[in-house]
């Protein structure tokens, strides 16, 4: 909703001008005036000690779509890679089940390009219906067929909520679906709930590199669409006795794809996958590792802990490890159960990518390093001594001592 300054309350202190990230507020005649470049971020609203800044509905209330109540049901796009449903789909079914329960509607999954067996797994995990297409066009991920078929199914069945993983795939094609349907899409959500009074979906997500959280609504359009960050929601319980319907659909005209995948190269490092976003344990290294060799220690640790290796941008820039391992503002955002930062100072751009991990262990020889501010456990010292000790202890434990 647009923001307005109540002139008789405004003291002209300028606090709002200071906090506005868009330079949208000016002082006019000793009173704040919100200008046309306001992005509605509401930073000023909280900054105003007088409470002079208010949201107003006014004449700008949007024309709603014809009949919102015609839209019913919660849908989950079940992403598959190499024919296997990605874990994030089960998390979405867990969360989607809660939302569907509150709304008293059914929970459906959409699966393109895997086997019937995988479709049945989605039923076991909570789906009442699965719209399933096994066309080979979906073997590799291409945006247009996925966007086209999903948008057409949505138009036909009219769900009120559509969720997908905030993964490379979900974040690439879901915007096309939203643009085709002219509806709202909220990226990279970490919280979803139903607003009791209206039944609208409240979608909460980090912004400004995780410095603030924003709750977003799409009150006037349907479906309400969101991509959801992997590892945040709890997967649905697996129940073999659950019954559900598997409905086969045809790709038909949506087989057209003007961007074709010619080859698909999976990156794996020995026993270790590099999919950072889905790892439960990440061992990250920074400039303190001093070279490529340092990462060998991290790999050993990762194998012992069943995890994968991450890195700071400094380590990536040095060429010690490829970019796909980078965690942070210009790399991946991760939230594993355990994040071990070795020789990483903890610059904000790194922290925003990992600070929502459950447990953070920091190993750094500088006790003043900012990484210790977010660490659950910190060890001050030389990683060249600490890591071998840790590896030894873990090996001892593995060997049953």
């Amino acid at each position: 909703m647009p923001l307005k300054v109540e002139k008789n309350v405004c003291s002209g202190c300028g606090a709002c001008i200071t906090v506005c990230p868009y330079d949208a507020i000016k002082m006019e005649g000793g009173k704040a005036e919100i200008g046309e470049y306001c992005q509605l971020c509401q930073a000023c609203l909280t900054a105003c000690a007088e409470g002079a800044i208010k949201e107003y509905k006014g004449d700008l209330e949007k024309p709603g779509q014809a009949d919102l109540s015609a839209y019913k049901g919660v849908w989950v796009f079940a992403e598959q890679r190499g024919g296997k449903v990605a874990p994030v789909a089960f998390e979405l079914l867990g969360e989607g089940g809660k939302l569907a329960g509150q709304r008293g509607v059914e929970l459906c999954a959409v699966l393109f390009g895997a086997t019937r067996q995988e479709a049945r797994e989605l039923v076991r995990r909570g789906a009442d219906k699965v719209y399933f297409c096994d066309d080979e066009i979906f073997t590799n991920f291409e945006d247009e067929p996925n966007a086209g078929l999903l948008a057409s199914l949505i138009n036909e069945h009219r769900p009120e909520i559509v969720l997908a993983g905030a993964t490379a795939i979900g974040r690439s094609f879901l915007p096309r679906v939203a643009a085709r349907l002219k509806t709202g899409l909220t990226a990279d959500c970490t919280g979803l709930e139903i607003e009791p009074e209206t039944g609208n979906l409240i979608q909460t997500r980090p912004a400004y590199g995780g410095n603030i959280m924003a709750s977003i609504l799409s009150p006037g359009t349907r479906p309400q669409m969101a991509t959801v960050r992997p590892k945040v929601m709890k997967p649905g319980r697996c129940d073999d006795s659950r019954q559900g319907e598997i409905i086969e659909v045809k790709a038909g005209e949506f087989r057209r794809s003007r961007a074709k995948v010619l080859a698909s190269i999976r990156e794996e490092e020995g026993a270790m996958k590099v999919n950072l976003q889905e790892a439960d344990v990440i061992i990250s290294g920074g400039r303190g590792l001093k070279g490529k060799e340092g990462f060998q220690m991290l790999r050993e640790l990762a194998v012992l802990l069943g995890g994968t290796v991450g890195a700071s941008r400094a380590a990536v820039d040095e060429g010690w490890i490829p970019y796909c391992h980078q965690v942070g503002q210009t790399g991946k955002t991760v939230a594993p159960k355990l994040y071990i930062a070795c020789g990483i100072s903890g610059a904000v751009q790194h922290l925003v990518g990992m600070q929502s991990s459950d447990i953070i262990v920091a190993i750094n020889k500088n006790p003043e390093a900012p990484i210790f501010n977010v660490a659950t456990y910190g060890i001050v010292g030389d990683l060249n001594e600490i890591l071998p000790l840790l590896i030894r202890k873990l090996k001892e434990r593995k060997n049953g001592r």
Partner: protein
Amino acid sequence: MRIAVCIKQVPDTAEVKINRETGTLVREGVPSIINPYDMHAIEAALGLRDALGGKVTAITMGPPQAEAALREAISMGVDDGLLVTGREFAGADTLATSRALSGAIRAIGADLIVCGKQAIDGDTAQVGPEVAEFLDIPHVSYVRKIIEAEIDHEARGSIKVERLMDEGVDVVQAELPALITVVRELNTPRLPSLRGKINAKKTEIKKLSAAEIGLTPEVVGFNGSPTQVKKIFTPAPRCGRRVLEGGLEEQVEALVKELMEKKCL
């Protein structure tokens, strides 16, 4: 090849600090920069133009001061700049932004559109694919390498790229016109040249309003945005910090014990 680069002016989030007491952004003295990913988009466009010939236009939708971002792009070698601006665009979400940008692109015509992967203020990564959908052209996200691009005199052509996925890399070939969004790994943005800086001063920046790109005020800015910000708050600070004690060996021992108790091992 006619290339359009979409760039956004953003507050330098590295400098944005949060006031824990009031829970607000402290913006004092925070500079505006070109979204870092968009710098790589500019470089990609310039590289292609230098190899294949043609022209690069930088486009931004934003307030009048966003003109500075276009001038900076010109100083790097971009041929001209287009500022989509006006009251009616304020408060745009990704859908309304994409509608405006695609309208502007349609107005000038482009064989290839290059966007950054995401903007560091909103981090949505949605504008690129949405622009492609509005223009009804293919797109490839997260491009980390341009393998080859070709175009004939009838503007038929293709671009072959590597795209970074969660578990590896895909080689993708797209028909032109197409849109790509790029990651940092793609290239190193060049520095402004002296000639570029001179051009940046004298080049006239073209401005377009909604009416000039054939859009009514109802479909852009706040009015054209299906999503609305309901509230903004600061994330709860982390708690449960524990300092380990003793010599290194004891600390490591204690850590392993703690992690076992927390079922991390």
